[in-house]
């Protein structure tokens, strides 16, 4: 149930929306970059293995 925010509803909701969006983008970007780094390292290790 939505709490009563009175005349400051826009301010409070926009503060929560922008903050949660930024945190979500940060976490998702971090996880995506981590997965890409693992794939890059796997490929580099395979390549190094081929070169002995």
């Amino acid at each position, binding site marked *: *149930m939505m*709490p*009563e*925010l*009175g*005349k*400051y*509803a826009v*301010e*409070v909701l*926009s*503060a*929560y929306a*922008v*903050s949660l969006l*930024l*945190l979500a*983008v*940060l*976490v998702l970007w*971090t*996880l995506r*970059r*981590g997965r890409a*780094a*693992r794939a*890059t*390292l796997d*490929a*580099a*290790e395979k*390549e*190094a293995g081929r*070169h*002995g």
Partner: protein
Amino acid sequence: MSIWSYANPVKFLTLSARVQPVLWVLSLACVATGLIWGFFGTPQDYRQGATVKIIYLHVPAALMAINAWFMMLVASLIWLIRRHHVSALAAKAAAPVGVVMTVIALLTGAIWGQPMWGTWWAWDPRLTSFLILFLFYLGYIALWEAIEDPDTAADLTSVLCLVGSVFAVLSRYAVQFWNQGLHQGTSVPVATGGRSVDDVFFYPLVICMIGFGLLFVALVFYRTGTEIRLRRAAALRARAGRAA
């Protein structure tokens, strides 16, 4: 076992893999609990109305924006003194997290300030030093990206981090130093133990602060692992290039 053994990338990754699940679960649980409690379970302030609910985002984000820089400072000093690569990569990994925390603190502060102070922004000592800290974060990240040799980049960014620490300190203590401007003093002074926040707002705020702190640690562990893997991949490719 000495703490310096974790300067070994393999040992760091092993430790990181072990603690990360706990950190992620605890941080998300604390952030969710604190924000839901603060948003749905606390009353309006008699003066600030519902805008008091912004405290659960603004204060933890500002706290972590400053503490992230101090963590980078410690890691940078370890790099400069002991030349442990993991510490330089940890500092690099923390910077984007710190910059996001700084942006959240600046934006929520502006959104909160407009109805309370009648302005989105003022050249107040605390706000200004915080804006300069934000610019230092951008400069720090840009410097890492601009320099090809990783050791040179680590050296120069460490020096930049030392210089920027002045503004991290000012961001925290500007109100006490100058005793002027719109921004109030800290709501939860850890050193003195006294506080200007009522219990009904304080407890969810503390949970949010713990949650943001744990989220920062989880993100830095994960991102440092990413940096180690990218550095290892670059080294392997360079070695293969020389052999070919």
